[in-house]
């Protein structure tokens, strides 16, 4: 009876033994990488909104303060999405016939809210409070990026827990003086770490327990 397998079958068998786990693990790694990719998590991709609102124009161009619209950022867990009334304070006077603003005028006339799409969506088991961050020197731009340069709004971070913990464990890497938190053109100081350590004291940041689970999960 002739040999069923040629000599190279040995090599093929060995290669297969190595390749199969590699393909499986590699595929797994690719999947994981994909799940963590900016594409899948939606980082840097503009979110479609009922009105193509431009922060670049309103913040960067006109210089409107964040808190003009996001009124409760300093006082509440929720920064606040402006009511239609806020839009209409200006747009009843300027651009009052612009077709792009039709949903705003409809909302104002019918009394039905504009339904915006959330850009930064934390999981429901995570409780974030805007006010405490703003009051302790964490800037809007630290999480939301240079919003003043966004013609449409996108998120600039994947919002994974390691990203939150990076700051909760080392706030000195990111803190700003409190009067700079809403400034969009703030330039990080070259000596951020020593400055950050001073700011921890100046801003009364209590670092004990900042990385406790219950700080964000309840």
């Amino acid at each position, binding site marked *: 009876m002739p040999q069923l397998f040629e000599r190279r079958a040995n090599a093929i068998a060995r290669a297969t033994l190595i390749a199969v786990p590699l393909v499986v693990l590699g595929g797994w790694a690719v999947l994981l990488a994909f799940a963590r990719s900016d594409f899948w998590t939606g980082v840097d991709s503009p979110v479609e909104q009922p009105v193509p609102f431009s922060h670049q124009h309103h913040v960067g161009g006109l210089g409107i303060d964040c808190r003009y619209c996001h009124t409760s950022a300093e006082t509440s867990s929720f920064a606040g999405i402006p009511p*239609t009334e806020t839009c209409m304070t200006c747009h009843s006077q300027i651009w009052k016939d612009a077709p792009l603003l039709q949903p705003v005028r409809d*909302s104002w006339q019918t009394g039905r809210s504009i339904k915006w*799409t959330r850009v930064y969506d934390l999981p429901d088991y995570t409780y974030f409070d805007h006010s*405490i961050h703003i009051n302790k020197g964490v800037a809007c731009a630290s999480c939301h990026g240079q919003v003043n340069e966004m013609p449409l709004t996108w998120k600039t971070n994947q919002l994974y827990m390691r990203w939150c913990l990076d700051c909760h464990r080392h706030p000195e890497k990111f803190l700003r003086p409190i009067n700079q938190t809403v400034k969009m053109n703030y330039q990080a100081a070259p000596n951020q770490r020593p400055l950050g350590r001073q700011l921890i004291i100046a801003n009364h940041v209590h670092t*004990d327990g900042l990385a406790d689970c*219950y700080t964000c999960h*309840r």
Partner: protein
Amino acid sequence: MSPLTGIWRSLDHLERPGDGSEEMQHREFPEGASELSDEWSRRQFLKIMCASIALAGTTGCTRQPLERIVPYVRQPEEVIPGRPLYFASALTLCGFARGVLVETHEGRPTKIEGNPGHPASLGASDAFMQAELLTLYDAERSQAVIHESQVSTWDLLLGELAGAAKKWQGNGGAGLRLLTRHETSPTILDQIARLLVKYPRAKWHEYDPLATELAAPRYHLDKAEVIVSLGADFLSAGPASLKHAHDFTLARQPKSTMNRLYVVEATPTLTGAMADHRLVMRPDDLEDFARTLESGTGSKVAALIAADLHEHAGRSLVIAGECESAVVRDAARRLNQTLQNVGATVDYPAAGRNSARNLQELVTDAHAGEIDTLVIIGGNPNYDAPADFEFGTLLPKIASTIHLGLYRNETGVACRWHIPEAHELESWSDAAAFEGSATIIQPVIEPLFAGRSRHELLAALLEEPFSSSYEIVRAFWQKRHAAPDFEQFWRKALHEGVIEDRSAAAPASSPPPNPPPPRSAGLHLLIRPSAQMLDGKFSNNAWLQEFPEPMTKMVWDNAALINPATASRLKLENGEVVDLKFRGRSVRAPIWILPGQAEDCVTINIGYGRTSSGSIGNGVGFNANTLRLSDAMWGGSGLEIGKTGKHHDLVTTQQHWEMEGRDQVRVGTFAEFQRRPDAIAKSAELPPRKDETLYPNVPDNGRAWGMAIDLNTCIGCGACTVACQAENNIPVVGKEQVGRGREMHWIRIDRYYEGDPANPAIFHQPVPCMHCENAPCELVCPVAATVHSSEGLNQMIYNRCVGTRYCSNNCPYKVRRFNFLEYDENHFEKPPTRKLMRNPNVTVRSRGVMEKCTYCIQRISAVKIEAEKANRLIRDGEILPACAQACPAGAIVFGDINDPVSHVSRLKASPLNYGLLAELNTRPRTSYLAKLRNPNPELEQI
């Protein structure tokens, strides 16, 4: 060994130590709770397990669904999204106002608290007040006007009323009758008075199955040193109970003196459980006892109690139960007068009576054919009227019947018209508290189901041009307070939630007739309101259905409660269904043997056995009203019990979560406390020293949260349990799941007995998570889902939990609760509206996740953030967990134990302080203060 070896936990435990209950003690969970009882093969199970593990990783790949943010069009000035607003309002119990503060999130009420400024609540609440929230969101409340079983409209009803009004104008309203519950609302009373002026021949009737006298005596329990209760459950029943519990505990503190409570009763109550001497006797013996107490002669016990009362003349108090006969009540009044307590510890307000007639007259007139229109405002007489009135056969004899009610209940179904009523938190109204001060009831949400208020219906009857409840109530108060500063008065009234204008007080209503029961041997029937359902008002409320009855710990049922000796004489067992026959009427009820019940007395609770309550309450329990007669509203003698041979499964939480008979509840007497205060809380087995551990010690700098629970003042009412359920989005699991030991309450009240089953001492012990410093649960979690925080909290992180349940197995206190099923999706809390009710600051847990008390971390975080923003320290008492806030006795105190002057530190420094199972070296952060009793030494010797 424990110094309290006499403590036992249930009759099965005491009497049959060799059977299943013994096994029960050595199991972690009751049978069926922890193992798979379905018919699954090992192979099938492994297949599923493999598939789950293989697919587990892919759950991480789900993409978050897009979420919408819906802002206001015009944002109301005071609303800041993300911050709750509180409104002062009131909820009524038996018609009397109890002030509340309602927490709302963007217009959705999510929690009810007592209003600290209101005399009937003093900031505390009870289970009913807490559970009213679920009723508000109950989607089974009536939603449409119904005319002869067809959906109709309010305008059609107005048309019919307009036609009838023409007739009434001609005949002075003859044939028009109004039937209300007990009313204290000044505006309603004014509207009714005007209606009776407009139609002089119309009549108003009042019926309340639990009617309490407005002119009921007002007790000042804080000033009483010796209290004798003759069948009164003043600590937990009635519209003034929160005030009573508050005042009672003030005088219960072991200072130079401590009050002494004697309770004489037939069926165990929470007040009886607090007693230093509890005497068990039948209602007719109680009358004799009241007489001997007055004369001071007769039995030695009565003589000793009478002597104690006289020794404390002016500082003593005799309280008669509202269910007791006039003989007892009169005796109590005379005793208080003799003892010079009137004006000191008790006030008897002048008795008045409003113009309302009683139900008896309505029934007589209806049989005589004198009624053509009956307007029933609130209530459910077809269910709760005395059985001998045959109310159900009466309604069809009346040409036009109109029912306004929250539910289309038994009465609503039998009436020609049914109108959905707006909930008290949905419409404007007012009501008076037990002591006469009025409160404006302000709504906190628009009517969810297009309900109409009582004011609107009365205005329609008065043919007044349509005005809203707000206009009606405001107009009434404008008339009463006709001053230029009315606006200021009105705003202050709304803000404070109480008006110091006692002239608004309604005149008294008469209580149900309580003729002295004819004496006879044989069994005695006692009919009592339910601690869960009240009179049936809450029967569609799943929170209260699953709220363990304080004495029996029974859920989702009522039973005929019977004494152990009587049960063994009649050869009755728990769950055995019997026929209760009383004066020609009968009802089938399951038996429950209850220690401390008087011999030959059977207690049944009303509020169950509903047929038109909704999917929650229908068919739960039996209808005790079947045996309620107009001349025996609270029962009487002559009961017979017939066996049926049937069995009904009764589910209690009593047997579950057994703690192995250690000295969990430590008790001493006040005399011992004065002699050797530190001996009482000391256990035979001492807790290990601080350095006796392999684990690192918790650093004692910074904040350290802890809790102290004072067993001396805890009355065991269970307000904490329901408050916690409302605050922490705790699901309801249903009778079958509770039967498997899967109830979800984060704080439970354990009940222990000590001594003779005929009249045992009864103890209550609330048990939340202990937040152990050496937490056994944390060591066994394979995924670190439960870990310690820097402030000493035992954190439970739901999103990490994979559901191994090792933590629960390793917890010696059995306070961890597992979501065996997707409980949040079950039907008990009515899906569509349920989501509005949820506390937005607490995660709603899903299947396969462990959960437990967090010390209300959401409240700690909220206060911490506010303090941090203001760069100040957290004030002592600023953080109130839901249980501590609800507790009427102030028995639960929370705070920073590293702050030596905080309230909780001072309590923990008390010699009475002890840790539950501290000998296991768990170092619990929740500790208990031992219970003290203050028995009469002379009576002890008998």
